């Protein structure tokens, strides 16, 4: 065989380490050649920012997105913050600094904090239920359905409710879940209940159920895509090394889809924290929400108070997201 004669070296079994261990000592490699052949260490430079002109190109790529965020996110948030320190009047506000909008929120008579607590608790429950319901759906679609076409077809069907607006979907709960609605009638007809259940509509429970229905796909989607992109051979390797189905899931599948889970949780949590349509239509005034509060305040032209409530809501959401991410970090294993 026309091959260079190599003297086998024991470097692999001698415990030498570092990049050097890959380079056999007895093979006369020049440093340059060695570096070229073995310079595949990740992070050893190929990710370094390219110099000069290409740096400018990178910045240009970022420009549209940055401008968009600046105009439609950063600027409004700043406006909201500024307005929250203005003094309210009957017709709006005058530009006089005050902290009374915030002290009103934290005063004893305000229901803001208890409402925020309820909403936060509801959002946490909704997020957890969405995860428990959504993960198996995503898993089924991405892993159990063998053909990619079928998986994406079924995924599109699952997405169908999103073809209508959130408002219409929330509205549809009323004929479905009211005292004389479809669910109560069916349950009564098949004899599971004797008296219609009032809890199905205009209750906190109803809000949670409706929010789960509304938001579960925000959980399914990121998990589905991450599962679909999952390296199956890692799962096979785990099986090969003696892991049962459950342990494969706990040790490989779940940790490798953590990113999708986190994105899904953040989506669901943030969306349910800010929701007001569901609270209004399905909660029917029996449950308060910050979104609803803000909407009411805006219709009363009390912009500074609305801005202060919005600012606190943003902070609460940020704390929630940070807690979620921190929790995920703790789950990371050695």
């Amino acid at each position: 065989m026309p091959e260079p004669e190599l003297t086998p070296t024991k470097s692999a079994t001698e415990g030498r380490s570092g990049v050097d261990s890959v380079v056999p000592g007895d093979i006369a490699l020049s440093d340059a050649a060695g570096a070229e052949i073995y310079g595949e260490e990740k992070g050893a430079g190929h990710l370094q920012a390219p110099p000069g002109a290409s740096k400018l190109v990178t910045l240009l790529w970022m420009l549209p997105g940055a401008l968009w965020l600046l105009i439609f996110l950063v600027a409004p948030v700043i406006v909201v913050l500024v307005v929250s320190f203005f003094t309210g009047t009957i017709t709006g506000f005058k530009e006089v600094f005050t902290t009374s909008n915030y002290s009103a929120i934290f005063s004893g008579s305000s229901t803001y904090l208890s409402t925020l607590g309820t909403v936060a608790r509801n959002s946490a429950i909704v997020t957890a239920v969405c995860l428990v319901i959504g993960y198996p759906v995503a898993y089924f679609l991405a892993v159990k359905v063998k053909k990619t076409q079928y998986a994406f077809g079924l995924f599109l069907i699952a997405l169908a409710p999103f073809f209508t607006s959130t408002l219409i979907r929330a509205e549809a709960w009323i004929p479905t879940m009211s005292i004389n609605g479809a669910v109560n009638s069916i349950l009564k007809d098949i004899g599971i209940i004797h008296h219609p259940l009032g809890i199905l509509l205009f209750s906190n429970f109803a809000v949670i159920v409706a929010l789960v229905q509304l938001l579960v796909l925000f959980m399914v989607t990121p998990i589905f895509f991450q599962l679909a992109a999952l390296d199956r051979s890692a799962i096979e390797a785990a099986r090969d090394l003696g892991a049962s189905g459950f342990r494969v899931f706990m040790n490989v599948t779940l940790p490798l889809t953590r990113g999708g889970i986190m994105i899904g949780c953040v989506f669901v949590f943030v969306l349910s924290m800010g929701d007001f349509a569901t609270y209004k239509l399905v909660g029917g005034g029996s449950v308060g929400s910050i979104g609803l509060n803000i909407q009411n305040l805006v219709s009363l032209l009390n912009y500074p108070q609305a801005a202060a409530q919005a600012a606190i809501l943003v902070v609460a959401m940020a704390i929630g997201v940070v807690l979620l991410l921190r929790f995920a970090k703790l789950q990371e294993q050695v």
Partner: protein
Amino acid sequence: MASNDQIAETTAAPESAAQTPAGNGGEEAAHGSGLELRQVTKHFSEVVAVDNVSLHIDNGEYVVLLGPSGCGKTTILRMIGGHEHPTGGDVLLDGKSLVGVPPAKRPTTTVFQHFALFPHRSVLGNVEFGLRMQGIDKQQRRKRAMEMIELVGLSEMRFRKPSELSGGQQQRVALARVLVTQPKLLLLDEPFGDLDRLLQLRMRVELRELQRELGIAFVHVTHNQEEALSMADRIVVMEGGHIQQVGTPAEISQRPSNVFVAAFMGDNNILQGEVAEVSNGRTVVNADVGQVAMATGESSLSVGDQVTVAVRANCVRLTAGDEKRQATNELACTVTATEYLGDTIKVHMRAGEHALLAKLPEDRYTELVGLAGKTATASWNDGDVQLLRA
């Protein structure tokens, strides 16, 4: 130590196998030990990936399944590992059927094609995994994992993630991860596919050394002829879901049994023709390029049979000029190109419509390079002509 005997056995294996040509199925080795495939078939809906394959692999043997992509070699490996289930036949290890046994319960482990390391776990976490699944307590498994990591020379990197390692280091982790579980049989799916050539050459030797030390059977899948020849005790050449030939590297290389093997192993001149003459131990064929004579011993061939024969490129002699001295096994041809390969020189020739190849020693470099475009005479011995099955 018992493993010493095993080492002796494995080192002796190539010679002994060479004396007794290994049969196609290994039915003669029907004793209970080792791995046995019995008429294994695998269908993927309409497609037959593996068709009625029988093979015996001894304990401590290094077997390479060689073939082009889609030949069924990986499917066989996956059926041994339990990642696919045969639609027909049986897979036995030490006499016990493995069919229906999940991968987790098999004493086999696999080094997967792209290593399939757990990206979220460190080197230590990867190597420990198998032991953790076996329920070995933390202290014990950490100790064994560290020993294995040391053995593959990655102690300093035990807390790194796979993505922070080079290809060669990742492969070491993959090996450590499977070997720490002390499998009875190691399966390797294109283990060198992700490594650069120099590293491949080194890993070949190291892996072979490791296999001798461990004394367990390795089943290695590759599409690389050179890799198969350099590592195997026995090579199983596959194509279209069938075993084409089983033999030692020397047998596969020197005596390909059919057209596919001769063509796939390369460096063979494959000639077709009609049997013109059969006389004691010698058959003359009117081939497309001229008359070819071969030593056939007692031959079942008769005049008029269509046959295909092979002449290895390194059995072809080459002389300048076109002076023909004998009636058979000598062709006038034109040299079209020469390829310098370090220790040999490949000379490409044309005899009429037919391309021919000769592999000659390096010391004739100057002479051969000067032959390009000129006429020459290619010749070989009767004994170097190999009759191929269709």
